[in-house]
């Protein structure tokens, strides 16, 4: 009588046969035409095509009584998809220099983008053992029941295709005086097929100014300063990354009724129902970026330094928050509408420092370091109700554990704060005595997590939930190191993220399922542990309620890449008809230092609300490459 969805993972791997084949082709056709000396017309057409085929074989398998992963009869799935995108850019550039010092560039252009996809496939099942892995569906004619991936009703409402388009018109003016004072102003008008006609177009201006101070007479002869540039910019960019037709309710919902006497697929009754619920007032999300900073090179250009103060404000953030079932979106094939939720601000400083030098004739090296601080905060909401998202719990889930609340980081985790473990019943009795209802915390027993009474009303209720961490890193850092000694070259890059929290949410509550080794340190009697609660089966405040016991600091340092190469001398290559030969060994993702207990501290689903919840992400693989660069 163990939980019905747990099976031996090795057996699961042995019985999984998935093959995905991807074929891609890309082409670009360009044309430049210069006339009247200063004018240039450019046209560029780009096309990408990809075909993806998935072959899945699911053999008949019995993992035990009542297991949900049991497979009755063999099943073959043959799914495919075609993706195509086209970009066509046309622009006219005017470049001129007046009085040898005034440099002007004016650009005017249009751009069209289209991306479309077609999905198809079929599933064949049989209750005989005639098919083996490697059999194609066509080999099984007559012995299998074939089910198309999309039935006629789904194709009639376009569930098997997508087609999104973007059209832009843009202009840009760049002017500089003798390369010393630079100014650039641009405006673009983007139109997206993802918004209703009234909100389809967005106007996005950008502007920047720059000053090459090192070209000024008072710094021109500086012995230590090779270059110094001050710059400032302001810009707005639009974002339309949401599903197609979010502005209208389409009849793409699932409405299949099994009348009870069905024999084949054709006997099912297919009706119509609303799919994704439309929000006609959807509009462009706008990111307003402001930046001020400088770039400098010092001491014979051995040292480079750049500093930026930035603020990126995302207005009308597009997302699909969880909402009440009253909206009626729980039906199959339906989904909650996307909304323009509010404004979020990211502020910070970005510093990067580099140093390169040469020692002797044979040794050359470079070092680089960059650091970015990030302060993320929700500024305001479009509406009164804070959007929620995210889910916690394997099997038994709680929704709305991530929230968007003004003044707090976007998508912060919302749950109970804990302060150790109840060690004795006397401790609980004392709290009950001072509680207004006589029960401080319903269901608490010695060995359970001690929740903090955040609002101070003398009892633990849902109102005591608060911000218990957020998935956004406060500081990120990058390191790189490289050197060249005679024929040998070496490079290494590392990345660090500090202050990002992660919810440990890949463990079942079932006591017979595997748990982390930290469970060995659990509370087993007064004074045994003040951090890991007792093991308890069934309902428990420890496992049923989302608390900071499950939120971990997922800061990490990762060695992303190390490469060692050897380049052969020209002499060694003489007579081989080879101009250059280099062999190298490269390792990616070699190690990660982190206190995070799960597999991958960098895993995230990227959702604005609901990211940083680790449901057992497949970790980034470690990879080693042996390579040869050959030039003829």
């Amino acid at each position, binding site marked *: 009588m*163990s939980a019905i969805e747990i099976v031996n993972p090795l057996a699961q791997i042995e019985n999984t046969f998935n093959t995905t084949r991807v074929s891609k082709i890309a082409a670009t056709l360009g044309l430049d035409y210069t006339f009247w000396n200063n004018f240039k017309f450019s046209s560029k057409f780009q096309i990408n095509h990809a075909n993806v085929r998935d072959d899945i074989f699911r053999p008949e398998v019995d993992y035990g009584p009542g297991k949900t992963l049991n497979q009755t009869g063999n099943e073959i799935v043959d799914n495919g998809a075609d993706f195509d995108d086209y970009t066509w850019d046309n622009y006219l550039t005017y470049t001129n220099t007046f009085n040898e010092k005034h440099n002007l560039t004016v650009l005017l252009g*249009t751009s069209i983008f*289209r991306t479309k996809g077609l999905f198809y496939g079929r599933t064949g099942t049989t209750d005989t053992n005639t098919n083996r892995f490697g059999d194609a569906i066509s080999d099984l004619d007559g012995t299998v029941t074939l089910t198309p991936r999309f039935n006629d009703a789904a194709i009639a409402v376009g569930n098997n295709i997508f087609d999104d388009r973007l*059209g832009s018109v843009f202009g840009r003016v760049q002017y500089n005086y003798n390369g010393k004072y630079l100014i650039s102003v641009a405006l673009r008008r983007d139109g997206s097929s993802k918004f209703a006609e009234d909100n389809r177009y967005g106007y996005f201006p950008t502007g920047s100014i720059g000053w090459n101070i090192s070209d000024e007479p008072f710094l021109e002869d500086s012995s230590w300063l090779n270059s110094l540039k001050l710059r400032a910019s302001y810009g707005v960019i639009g974002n339309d990354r949401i599903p197609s037709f979010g502005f209208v309710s389409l009849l793409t919902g699932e409405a299949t009724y099994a009348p009870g006497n069905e024999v084949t697929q054709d006997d099912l*009754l*297919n*009706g119509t129902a609303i799919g994704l619920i439309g929000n006609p007032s959807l509009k462009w999300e706008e990111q307003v970026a402001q930046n001020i900073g400088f770039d400098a090179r010092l001491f014979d250009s051995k040292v480079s330094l750049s500093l930026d103060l930035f603020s990126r404000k995302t207005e009308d953030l597009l997302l699909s928050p969880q909402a009440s079932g009253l909206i009626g979106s729980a039906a199959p094939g339906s989904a909650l509408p996307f909304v323009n939720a509010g404004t979020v601000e990211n502020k910070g400083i970005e510093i990067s420092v580099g140093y390169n030098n040469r020692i002797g004739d044979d040794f050359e090296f470079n070092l680089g370091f960059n650091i970015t601080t990030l302060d993320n905060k929700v500024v305001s909401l479009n509406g009164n109700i804070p959007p929620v998202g995210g889910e916690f719990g394997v099997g038994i889930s*709680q929704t709305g554990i991530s929230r968007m609340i003004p003044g707090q980081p976007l998508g912060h985790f919302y749950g109970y704060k804990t302060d150790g473990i109840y060690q004795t019943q006397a401790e609980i009795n004392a709290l009950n005595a001072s509680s207004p209802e006589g029960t401080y915390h319903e269901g608490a027993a010695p060995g359970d997590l001690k929740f903090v009474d955040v609002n101070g009303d003398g009892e633990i209720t849902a109102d005591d939930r608060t911000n218990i961490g957020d998935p956004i890193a406060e500081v990120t850092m990058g390191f790189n190191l490289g050197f060249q000694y005679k024929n040998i070259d070496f490079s290494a890059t590392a990345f660090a993220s500090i202050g990002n929290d992660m919810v440990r949410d890949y463990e079942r509550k079932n006591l017979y399922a595997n748990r982390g080794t930290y469970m060995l340190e659990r509370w087993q009697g007064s004074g045994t542990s003040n951090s890991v609660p007792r093991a308890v089966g069934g*309902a428990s405040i420890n496992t049923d309620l989302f608390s900071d016991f499950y939120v971990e600091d997922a800061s990490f340092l990762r060695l992303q890449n190390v490469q060692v190469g050897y380049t052969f001398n020209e002499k060694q290559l003489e007579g081989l008809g080879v101009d250059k030969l280099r062999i190298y060994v490269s390792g990616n993702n070699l190690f990660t230092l982190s206190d995070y207990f799960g597999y991958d501290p960098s895993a995230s689903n990227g959702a604005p609300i609901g990211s940083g919840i680790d449901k057992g992400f497949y970790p980034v693989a470690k990879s080693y490459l042996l390579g040869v660069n050959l030039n003829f």
Partner: protein
Amino acid sequence: MKNILKTIMLVLIIGLAACDDYIEVDPVGPDADDYFNNQAEYESALIGAYDLLQASFWNVLAGVVASDDYAAGGDSFNYDQPTLQNINLMIQTPADENQLRDIWNLMYAGINRTNYILEFKNKTDFAGKDEIIAQTYFLRAYYTFELVKFLEIYL
């Protein structure tokens, strides 16, 4: 030279003008506001409204274990359907809202689908429409009744 210039100007002008038409994409199939034009579409939407009856097995499960007639069974220590066990013992908390949340969501989804038909009940006339509308009213009443059985709702 002049011909090439003319071509360039033409491409730019067409580009500017065609742009707006190009990004006008019509969805495949009707949108929800442009439906109920004939009997078949009313019947099709009615199948959609019936669909959620198939989800009411949750109601039966939760209903029988809440009654004195059945026990949820299973092993509470081993997390075998703990939320049903909690309903059985009448100790469900907001955290183990699985079945009750599903009932709430799915029955309101059913009500939503019936309301969709009723919103357009006067759009197109045909013989036998009264029967379809009557079935729709019945389904809405039934979904509402299922909700009232379990939860406090605003009627």
